């Protein structure tokens, strides 16, 4: 009863909209609209410029709408030497890396939730504490050299397999579920691995999805490991290739020369320029993120929430 009167009073109050309220709302909306446009426009700009005629794009007239549509840029860029190899490497590290990290995080998170493990607390600390220190660039580099991981695809995968933060996420998640399921399975005689595969993997799907997405984005975007450990061009990732294109005019000039034959005769509208190649490769690199993003967004939020609860 009293609650009802409260809400009506509140509704009555809400109906009185003051000038202050209106101007606040207008300014508030305007600021958010402007900031959102600033966040999004650059991507739009890249996309419309890669699908518009290259001579118009070079003159800087494509700012809002694409004009004289053409898709020659994309066709040509995929012929660039190195690009499809780099795309394969990037895809490969996303798939394999994500799979390894997610499964390992699931398994370790589950195992560390088992009270019975021998010296569990010690090993858990042993692993978690590595989040807070870092030996540094050179010591890491020397380890990779000694393990012959430099110039190897596995340098992208192995160091990322055990990720303490993800393991904490899974452990927290599993501990929040009642343990009766596991006990029931144990009574039925199921071993620990069976329990993990049959019960825990399906149950922790939401948190694993979050980890998988973060890890996939991380693998796709990673650049520093290629920079430091890789000199073999066959193992370049897309990000690193883009970096080369942007920063080393000579790389691009070489690429264009080797691609020259037909492109040299092409007309201005579809002729590749340094800028058009940079932009097109950028769009190719950003495209998967933009595509996956709307579906993945809710998992990002879940992840960060669980992370913050852990504190």
């Amino acid at each position, binding site marked *: 009863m009293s609650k009802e009167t409260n809400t009506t009073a509140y509704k009555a109050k*809400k109906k009185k909209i003051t000038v202050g309220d209106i101007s606040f709302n207008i300014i508030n909306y305007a600021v958010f609209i402007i900031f959102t446009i600033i*966040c999004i426009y650059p991507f739009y700009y890249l996309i419309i410029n890669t699908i518009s005629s290259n001579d118009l794009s070079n003159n800087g007239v494509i700012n809002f709408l694409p004009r004289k549509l053409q898709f020659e840029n994309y066709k040509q860029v995929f012929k660039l030497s190195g690009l499809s190899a780099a795309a394969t490497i990037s895809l490969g590290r996303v798939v394999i890396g994500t799979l390894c990290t997610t499964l390992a995080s699931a398994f370790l998170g589950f*195992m560390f939730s088992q009270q019975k493990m021998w010296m569990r607390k010690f090993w858990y600390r042993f692993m978690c504490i590595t989040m807070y220190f870092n030996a*540094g660039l050179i010591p890491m580099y020397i*380890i990779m050299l000694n393990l012959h991981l430099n110039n190897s695809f596995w340098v992208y995968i192995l160091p990322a397999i*055990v990720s303490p933060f993800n393991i904490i996420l899974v452990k927290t998640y599993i501990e929040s579920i009642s343990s009766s399921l596991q006990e029931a399975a144990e009574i039925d005689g199921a071993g620990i691995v069976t329990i993990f595969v049959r019960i825990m993997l399906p149950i922790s799907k939401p948190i694993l999805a979050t980890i998988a997405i973060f890890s996939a984005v991380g693998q796709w975007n990673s650049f520093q490991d290629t920079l430091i450990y890789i000199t073999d061009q066959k193992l370049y990732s897309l990000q690193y290739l883009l970096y080369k294109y942007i920063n080393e005019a000579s790389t691009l000039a070489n690429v264009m020369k080797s691609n020259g034959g037909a492109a040299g005769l092409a007309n201005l509208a579809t002729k590749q320029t340094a800028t058009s190649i940079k932009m097109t490769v*950028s769009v190719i690199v950003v495209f998967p993120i933009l595509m996956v993003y709307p579906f993945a967004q809710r998992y990002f939020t879940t992840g960060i929430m669980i992370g913050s609860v852990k504190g």
Partner: protein
Amino acid sequence: MDKAITAPKAKSKKRKAKDQSFKYFLLVAPFLVLVFIFSYLPLYGWSYAFFDYRPPLKLSQCEFVGWKWFKYLFGNPMQIKQLINVLKNTFAMSGLGILTSVLPLAFAVFLNEIKCKWFKKLVQTLTTIPNFISWILVYSVAFSLFSSSGMVNHVLQDLGITTDAIKFLESDSHTWITMMLWGLWKGLGWGAIMYLAALAGADQEQYEAARVDGAGRFKLMWHITVPQLLPTYFVLLMMSIANFLSNGMEQYFIFSNSFNMQHIQVLDLYIYKISMGSASFSLGTALSMMKSIISVTLLWVVNTLSKVFRGESII
């Protein structure tokens, strides 16, 4: 009689439990080996800081030089000057980061005032996208918009505001501020998500009660919304103080060029340049070693402070 039967049984049960607990350990052991190799073993590499290490040689073939590299860092005026410059940049970037850390909070508080649900969601979705692209792509974006033949210069020239292209990227004017702005462009929306998530579960009754009492909008925001977010803010602030020396190198590495090096070279980038650029492995190791030790100390101090004042540790 009874005891005699149960005793051996209990013993075998105990033994079985012990076997099982060891089996669990064996299952995770391979992963612990990975942790050891990639996180602990590199610490042994700190010994390189005390040698004059030259790459093709083995460490045992190199000369032991003791504290030479540490002394060298503070030894001659030139070196000191450079180190001070690097630290200045590091402190400036981290300091600006801490100063602007209230912005995500403000973003969340003001977005929370918007009642239109789809608009709120749209803003949230679109403003977090930049967080998920790499710094190389950010630079690529920066390049296509701000290079001398980029969009901004074209527009400025078309409008007759400038006649010559402004060199936004190849100049050293306001480097710190520019880097901060790119950081905000990339991270502001994402930084707000945690606060927004915290607000989503907020208790609405408090607002209604305060409204009935005649509290205006700003009072509600200041006295109800903000206090709910302060604990999260505090933890993040502590973490950023602990990470004061680590700006990461990617952003600065990619945006750096010969024009802005004076103001963009942060500690992480400096270590990279010394180590990989001029191949002074030992000097680079000495630097990262000092950085790691200071960082861990900072984290410990901050954590202790947090325990004393909030009764909660942050790690």
